[in-house]
C-alpha cells in the first residue's frame, strides 16, 4: 500500500482530508458537550463566557445522580454476573458436546439485534405490568431483559475464546490426565478463556450503562438509572446534563481501553496444522 501512496501524493492528501472530516464530525458533539460541562455561561455566544468545574462538583454532590449511578452499576453487576454464571457453561456445553444445537443457539443469541428495544418493551410491559408477575418498574425486569440484550456479546466472546484455546482438546488432555469433566472445566478451561469472559463483561457493562429505551419504558422514574436521570435533567439543567454525559463517556473510555487490553491478548495455544485431524469426534 505504501508504494502506491508514495507515487500519488494527491491521493494521500485526499485520504487525510476524508479522515479528518469524518473524525471531526464524530468527535465534535462529544467535545462541545465537554466544553459545555466546564463552561460558566454559554447561551447565545459562539464560545462560552468562562470556564469552571462547578458542574462536576454539583453533579457528584447530587444525591439523585449518585443513586442513579449506583442503580446502573447494580443492575450491570447483577446482570453480568448472572449471565456469566448461566451462559458460559451453556455455551461451553453446546459448542463442545451438543454441536447440533450450535446453529440454533447462534440464531437465538442474535435475536436481540433484530428486535428494537421499543418492540421488546411492548411485550414485556404487557406481560409484567399486572399480576401474577408485576415486576414492571422494578430492577428485576431490567435484569431480565438486559440478560437477553447482552447475549450476543457474551456468546461471541466466549465462543471465540473457546475456539482459540482449542477447548475440546484441552478438555481431552485434562481428562486423560485424570481430571473429571467439571474439574477439567474449572481448572483448565475457565482460566484460559478468562480474557474473553472479561471482554464480554466489559462490553456488557458499557451496553447496560448506555441503555435508555427499555430503562425508560419499563421502569422510568421508579428505578432511575443514569440514562433516565440524564433524560430528566436534559430539560432542566444543561450543565448537569453535559457533566453526566462526559462522566458516562469517561466510563465508556475506560471500559473500551480495558477491552482493547484484554481483547488483544494473543491466544496462547497454537492451533494444529490442518492435516491429520480426521474424524469428527
Amino acid at each position, binding site marked *: 500500500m505504501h508504494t502506491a501512496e508514495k507515487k500519488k501524493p494527491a491521493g494521500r492528501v485526499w485520504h487525510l482530508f476524508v479522515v479528518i472530516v469524518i473524525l471531526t464530525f464524530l468527535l465534535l458533539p462529544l467535545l462541545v458537550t465537554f466544553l459545555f460541562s466546564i463552561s460558566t455561561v454559554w447561551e447565545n455566544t459562539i464560545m462560552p463566557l468562562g470556564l469552571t468545574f462547578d458542574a462536576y462538583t454539583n453533579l457528584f454532590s447530587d444525591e439523585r445522580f449518585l443513586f442513579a449511578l449506583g442503580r446502573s452499576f447494580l443492575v450491570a453487576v447483577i446482570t453480568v454476573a448472572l449471565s456469566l454464571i448461566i451462559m458460559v457453561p451453556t455455551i461451553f456445553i453446546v459448542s463442545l458436546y451438543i454441536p447440533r444445537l450450535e446453529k440454533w443457539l447462534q440464531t437465538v443469541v442474535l435475536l436481540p439485534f433484530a428486535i428494537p428495544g421499543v418492540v421488546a418493551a411492548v411485550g414485556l410491559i404487557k406481560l409484567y405490568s399486572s399480576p401474577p408477575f408485576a415486576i414492571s418498574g422494578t430492577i428485576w425486569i431490567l435484569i431480565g431483559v438486559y440478560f437477553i440484550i447482552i447475549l450476543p456479546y457474551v456468546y461471541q466472546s466466549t465462543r471465540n475464546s473457546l475456539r482459540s484455546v482449542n477447548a475440546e482438546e484441552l478438555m481431552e*488432555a485434562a481428562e486423560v490426565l485424570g481430571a473429571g469433566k467439571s474439574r477439567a472445566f474449572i481448572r483448565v478451561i475457565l482460566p484460559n478463556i478468562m480474557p474473553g469472559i472479561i471482554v464480554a463483561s466489559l462490553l456488557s457493562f458499557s451496553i447496560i450503562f448506555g441503555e435508555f429505551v427499555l430503562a425508560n419504558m419499563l421502569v422510568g422514574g421508579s428505578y432511575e438509572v443514569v440514562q433516565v436521570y440524564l433524560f430528566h435533567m436534559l430539560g432542566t439543567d444543561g450543565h448537569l446534563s453535559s457533566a453526566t454525559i462526559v462522566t458516562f463517556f469517561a466510563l465508556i473510555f475506560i471500559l473500551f481501553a480495558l477491552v482493547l487490553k484484554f481483547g488483544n491478548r494473543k491466544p496462547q495455544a497454537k492451533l494444529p496444522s490442518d*492435516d491429520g485431524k480426521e474424524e469428527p469426534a
Partner: protein
Amino acid sequence: MSFVHIRNVSKSFQDNKVLNQVSLSIEKGEFVTLLGPSGCGKSTLLRSVAGLNDIDEGSISVGGMDITHLPPKKRNVGMVFQSYALFPNMNVYDNIAFGLKMDGLSKLDIRSIVDDMISLIDLKGKEDRYPNQLSGGQQQRVALARSLVKKPTVLLLDEPLSALDAKIRRSLRNEIRLIQQRLKMTTIFVTHDQEEALTISDRIFVMNQGEIEQVGSPNDIYTAPASEYVARFIGNYNVWSRQQLQGLPVRGVPEQGDVFAVRPEAIRMETGYGDEIEGGIVADGKVTMVSILGNILRFEVDVSGLPVTVDMLSGQSIEHLGSGTPVRLVIPRDEWKSIRKSS
C-alpha cells in the same frame, strides 16, 4: 497373553462406519504404529483406547483389565496430541504436574517425580516457561513428559510430530523412541507418514477404511506389501496390473498373479543390450525425466506408454542418461511381487 487387546471394535459417526470389526493385540513394551491416510480410522481407534470416544461394539483391555466402559480419567493411559494441547495458563512444571495433582499426590512427591521427568526430557531450567514461550519441539517434549509422569499403562501418540518442521521431527522421533525403549513403555503411535512409521516402530498396522490391511515389521511391510493399497501407500512402488502389461515390450512376466509391485530401487537399468538374465523380467523403454533426490537419481521411464519409476544411487556413471535415452530395464524375478488387488 498380549498386553493390549482390542477385539472386534466398530464405530460409526452418523452413517459413516469409521472402524469395522478391528482386532489387534500388542505386547508389553512394544512400539506399534497405526499407519494410514486421513480418514482411515487410525485416530478414532487411538481415541477409543483413551476413552475419548465411545465404541459401538467390541472390547478393549489393557494389562488384563477390561477398560471398555471406563471414563478416560480412570484408564491411566498417556496421550500426546498433534497440537500438544498444553494448558496455556500453566508453566512447564505445572503442566507436567497436572496429572499427579489430579491423583492427589503430596507436593513433595510431585516435585521429585516432575524433576526427574524434566531432566529425562532435557528441559531443565525451563520449568517456569509458559507454553507460548517454547518452540514446537519443546512443547511436544513437555506434552510427552506430562503424559509419562503418571506411569501410564499405554502411551498413545496421535500424530505428535506432524505439526513440526522436518528437521525437528526427525530428532524428536529418535528421542521418543529412545525414551520409549528406556522406560519399556507400551506405545501406540498414529501417523500418516510412512517414513516415520518405518523408522520408529517394532510393528506396523496399516489401516484402510476402518480395517487393518496388513500387519508386520517395518521390513515386512516395506519389502513385501500384501496388497495394492499397501504398496501404493508405502512408497514409490511401481504397481501394474496384468492387463496394463498386455502387448507391451515386457518379457518374462510370470504366469500367476493379476497385480504386481516392484520397488524402484530393485530395477536395474542398462543401456547396452546384453544378454537377458535368467529368471528376470525385461522391458525396453525410454527415459523421460531425471530428478536428483539427494544421493539418489530418479528416472521416469516410458515403456510404450507405461510409466516406470527407477531409482539408482548416483555416481554409477549413469548421469549421462538424459531424457530420450533408450534403456533396458531388468527386474530380478524375486523382486517382482504379486500382490492382492485392492478395491
